[in-house]
């Protein structure tokens, strides 16, 4: 019975992924004085893509056919490891935080490979950018979650997030700082505003969009859906830091999760509206800053554990 409810929650999670981005886009439009598209616009987009024919470049090998599927599947698996709100995830074992990172890495790897496979120099450029920024983004994850794992002595994501208590004030700051660091990570990994603008299609500044430029139809559907899922996964990941009640009550846990998510959406919208995008050369610096927050946390709590 429990497994059924887990699967149900996971299915709802997957289905709600486009809605999240829809709400963000709508609020963003409202904040800048426009009406904006409907919050269900991403569903319409996905439906449109689903109906279209997939066309492959003549220079493309089997990699191009495989990579959207692999990318999507690895994101789905990563979602299974992530504790959603208070529930125990579908897959949970010691050390799954490393599997989580590498499943997301695998997804990105296949996206990069798929972009390079087509042979357009333009997509190669995007792939190079994505790979470069991924190098700087990886330490953020490992320093933040690694320091948490180190403090709690747990290596499973579920156990780590359920060891968090918000009683000690200095601990609270540590959690807040770690969540800021993960928020930076989220913006980078999902190519949102200060790092990459998902709306512009200006050749010189695209990072993520340029990689899927030659994909069409169902391939593009898979890529888009995995992008939507990825942002929801990272948002849940960030919001998990503030799951204060350790609730065993489903309804209460659900409402806490929703409230935290709403706060996170507000933060995301605010950041995206207020900040312009960074210069390409200052992005590594921005990422290093986020990583160094993680390092600082790790230092403080490993050397001076009371």
């Amino acid at each position, binding site marked *: 019975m429990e497994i059924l409810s887990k699967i149900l929650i996971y299915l709802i999670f997957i289905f709600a992924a486009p809605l999240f981005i829809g709400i963000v886009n709508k609020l963003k439009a409202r904040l800048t004085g426009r009406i904006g598209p409907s919050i269900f616009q991403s569903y319409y987009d996905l439906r449109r893509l689903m109906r279209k024919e997939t066309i492959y470049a003549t220079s493309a090998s089997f990699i191009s056919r495989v990579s959207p599927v692999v990318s999507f599947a690895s994101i789905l698996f990563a979602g299974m490891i992530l504790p959603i709100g208070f529930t125990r995830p579908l897959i949970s074992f010691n050390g799954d935080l490393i599997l989580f990172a590498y499943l997301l890495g695998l997804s990105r790897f296949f996206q990069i490979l798929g972009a390079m496979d087509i042979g357009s120099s333009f997509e190669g450029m995007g792939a190079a950018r994505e790979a470069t920024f991924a190098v700087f983004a990886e330490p953020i994850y490992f320093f933040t979650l690694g320091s948490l794992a180190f403090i709690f002595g747990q290596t499973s994501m579920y156990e780590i997030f359920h060891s968090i208590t918000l009683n000690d004030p200095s601990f*609270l700051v540590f959690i807040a*700082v770690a969540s800021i660091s993960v928020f930076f990570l989220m913006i980078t990994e999902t190519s949102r505003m200060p790092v990459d603008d998902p709306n512009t299609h200006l050749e010189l500044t695209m990072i993520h969009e340029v990689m899927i430029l030659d994909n069409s139809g169902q391939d593009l559907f898979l890529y888009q859906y995995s992008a939507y899922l990825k942002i929801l996964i990272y948002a849940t990941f960030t919001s998990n830091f503030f799951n204060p009640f350790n609730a065993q009550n489903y309804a209460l846990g659900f409402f806490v999760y929703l409230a935290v998510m709403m706060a996170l959406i507000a933060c995301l919208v605010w950041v995206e509206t207020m900040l312009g995008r960074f210069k390409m050369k200052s992005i590594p*610096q921005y990422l290093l800053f986020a990583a160094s927050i993680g390092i*600082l946390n790790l*230092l403080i709590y490993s*050397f*001076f554990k009371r």
Partner: protein
Amino acid sequence: MGNVLNILFCLSLLYLATTTRVTAYLKVFVLQSILLFFIVMLPLLNHISVFTLLLPLTILVVKAILIPWYIRKKIIYELEINTTIESNIQQFNFLLLSVFSMVAVFVFCNIITKDAAVAPIPFSAAFSSVVIGLYVIIFRKKLIVHVIGFLVMENGIFLLGIAVASEMPFLIELGMLLDIFVVVFLMGIAINRISSTFAADEVSALDKLKN
């Protein structure tokens, strides 16, 4: 709670290593001064008197209001200084260097404070503040940024005093504060004078000065 303030202090240092705007530097300095005020106030909360309030209030007035006001008004606006900071090394390397130095400082402080009766987190925060203040003076080109780097260093020394001695000899601290103010004042006058005869606000241009 004291640790929280110290962690925020460390974060402000990291921000100092990221940004390239003179005004942002000034804002970080104000933030640090306010944090220092709270750090000093926190242990005094139980026995507030006029005498114990003297030092924190002086810090607040001099460091968070007077010096920033002077730098902003008299130097940045009146001299119309270009607010982008030029650096001797690349910005990314500067951040990298700062992070590595901070790691080194933390490890080092962890070793040396093991047996001593010293609060480790303020000690490391203070030490890294001194180091990063030094880096700012070494690697940045603008004169006014050197002044701010010096002030950040001074903040670090002040925090060091708090970390090492629970009972502060605060006549000394008061004297130091006065010194700092005078130094900033003189520096401002000097920059004013230099710029009225010679249009440069960078250290690299100063070696061209002749009689």
